[in-house]
């Protein structure tokens, strides 16, 4: 019985392995199809890129990609021998704080995407650069809340900065697992404007893809740094800019992105300097969720 099961087992593994290779290795060993065909998202107002396909091949880029992805793959395999997520087990169990993003060089800005309402036709501008001595990240620009004159957009005026979702080898999905922490910790210096923190978590159904968990980030202004601790229990669920009626706590085991958004309708220049973004375990905080979950809101 055991022998037959074993023989049954091996081809299946082989088949799965071949599937894995085909699915993940094939598109990346060559250049991705979308990159070749110029099928990237075309922003409104951009001219279409008509460069022929053969001019877009770059041998060095391919080699670079192979090196990067195989290094990641190697780390993933070898990291498991050290412990979960490549860290020793004792550290995994006992760590109380974890710095997720710190800005200590130009490569740290690569992990963030800056966008503004120019995508919907607005006129705000936002830029990201390294601050003083290359040790902080400075987001600056101007906010303009005049809605685009397209006849249907009613509100405009936002600037946002969002972290890129973590990727494993060969661009497989990875998530931040913050389930052993309960508080978000930021060290910032702003100019008195209120901001908003948006956490995007992995969802199962596609209609939940716009779900975000948000809370406010108030800045004091002035020349001093400000340590902000926001418990994850305070984050409320919103989708496409609307707070949802049935709330539930943010599940921290699969966090994809975190974003910082400005949209306070005060037109003018803004700036926010970030030193680091970290998560920590605040043992004095026992609240599980700050909003009512036991009945529909508003009650039917």
């Amino acid at each position, binding site marked *: 019985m055991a022998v037959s099961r074993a023989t049954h087992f091996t081809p299946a593994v082989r088949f799965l392995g071949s599937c894995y290779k085909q699915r993940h290795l094939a598109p990346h060993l060559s250049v991705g199809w979308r990159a070749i065909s110029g099928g990237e998202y075309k922003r409104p107002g951009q001219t279409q890129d008509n460069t022929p396909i053969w001019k877009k091949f770059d041998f060095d880029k391919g080699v670079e990609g192979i090196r990067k992805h195989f290094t990641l793959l190697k780390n993933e395999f070898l990291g498991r021998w050290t412990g979960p997520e490549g860290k020793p087990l*004792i*550290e995994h*169990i*006992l*760590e*109380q*704080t974890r*710095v997720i993003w*710190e800005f*200590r060089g130009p490569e740290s800005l690569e992990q963030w995407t800056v966008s503004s309402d120019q995508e919907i036709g607005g006129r705000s501008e936002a830029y990201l650069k390294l*601050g*003083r*001595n290359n*040790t*902080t990240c*400075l987001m*600056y620009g101007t906010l303009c809340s005049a809605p685009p004159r397209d006849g249907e957009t009613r*509100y405009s005026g936002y600037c946002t900065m969002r972290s890129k979702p973590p990727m494993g080898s060969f661009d497989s999905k990875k998530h931040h697992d913050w389930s052993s922490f309960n508080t978000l*910790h930021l060290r910032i*210096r702003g*100019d*008195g*404007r*209120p901001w908003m923190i948006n956490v995007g978590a992995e969802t199962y159904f596609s209609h939940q893809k716009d779900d975000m968990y948000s809370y*406010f980030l*108030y*800045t*004091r*202004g*002035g*020349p*001093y*740094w400000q340590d902000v601790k926001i418990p994850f229990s305070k984050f409320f669920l919103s989708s496409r800019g609307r*707070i949802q*009626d049935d709330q539930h706590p943010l599940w921290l085991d699969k966090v994809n992105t975190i974003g910082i958004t400005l949209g306070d*309708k*005060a037109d*003018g*220049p*803004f*700036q926010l*300097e970030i*030193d*680091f973004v*970290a998560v*920590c375990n605040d043992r004095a905080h026992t609240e599980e969720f700050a*909003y009512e979950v036991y009945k529909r*809101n*508003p*009650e*039917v």
Partner: protein
Amino acid sequence: MNGARCLLRLQSVGFLAPSVRAAVQHAALLQPATALSQITVRNTCGQALRRFHGSPGCYKSQPVPTDPGEEHEDRVKKDKSLITHDDLFERVAREAKTKATFNRVVDVFSKRDIRRRGHVEFIYAALKKMPEFGVERDLTVYNKLLDVFPKEVFVPRNFIQRMFNHYPRQQECGVHLLEQMENYGIMPNVDSKVLIVQIFGDKSHPMRKYQRIMYWFPKFKHANPFPVPVQLPEDPVDLARLSLNRIANDLDAKVTVYQMPCTDISESGEITFPHVVGIQSPDQMELLAKHNPNRPVFVEGPFPLWLRKICVYYYILRADPLPPEEKVEEPYDPERCFDFPLQLDLDLDRDMGDDDSFDVEDVDEGPVFAMCMTSQGDQATLNQWISGLQETNPILGRVPTLFRLEAGPRELQGVADPGPGYREEGEEEVETDIVVEEEHQRSQGVKQ
């Protein structure tokens, strides 16, 4: 039994307005005389219950007479086939854009036709015009606009109407109105609720919107740990005092007004002195006293600070961070605080689970010695601030002061390490000697 039916309906609606209640009581008294009671209710609610077979023509009543000029205008308007309600506002806006005129327009519209024909378009137009008239933050005006909706017509009467979207355009309009209130941060009150229940019924979309606003607004009303007053002070000195106290983050910090704004008329002409308001805490004074006099201090700015929609600018006095070789680790003075030990030297068996510090390098920035706000950020004005600071911090007389000012607002950043030839655009870097400074101060004093 029309009156009884109407009474039942009103009761089911859950009315709260005393006027309606009085009307219904009145109707109940006159229940045998059905026709009379119906008229009563019709007059109070502003909208009759339509009979099934009745044509709307039967209910057409003469518009309530308004003052003759407006009536004439109405007649002119009736000649046109397309009525734009923007037009009504435009005509009034020519005289004055105030709350009174806005209310008058709404009254004119409500009195013109008992069935309020075109009220959805009118409300959309009114919502658009609200910021122009300066009433976008006025709850009573919003309630007045809600009152334009005819009552009772849009309330679903049976389960089929309730199931489907009953009068969707009107409900959308109501939600739009509430959304505009939400955007301006106005919380509706009980009057709005009564109106919404009377207009749309108790499970309609506008009612849901109202309930959502009433649930979430109070939750986040006091979420800001650094609250800004709704009414900011008009006086620039008071505003500077408020903002300096906000950014100093120290209850011991003392605000000093170095110069009040004043206008002086002398033989050379009219001179306006800007206000200079500064803040300094005892800790900052201590830091400044310990500052090495060979190293310069910098006056930097202007940096922006936003208080709601207002942006103010401030200037800071700071120094470069100390190079690592000059840093001295100062031991804690054990006698500084007897109640509370500042340093504990216990050998506890602490492991990683007790370590709550973050694994990051500290950002090394120079100390900030003082902050000030002024309406005129030129060097002469800021010199006055420095000379005023000198009275409490005598070391400033021996320290070279450099001005790094920019014409426009600039980003809040620490001092980048300037190389020997480092100079930013538009930066005036002037080294002032103490003697020059003293003379400058004296001349300023004479001018005053």
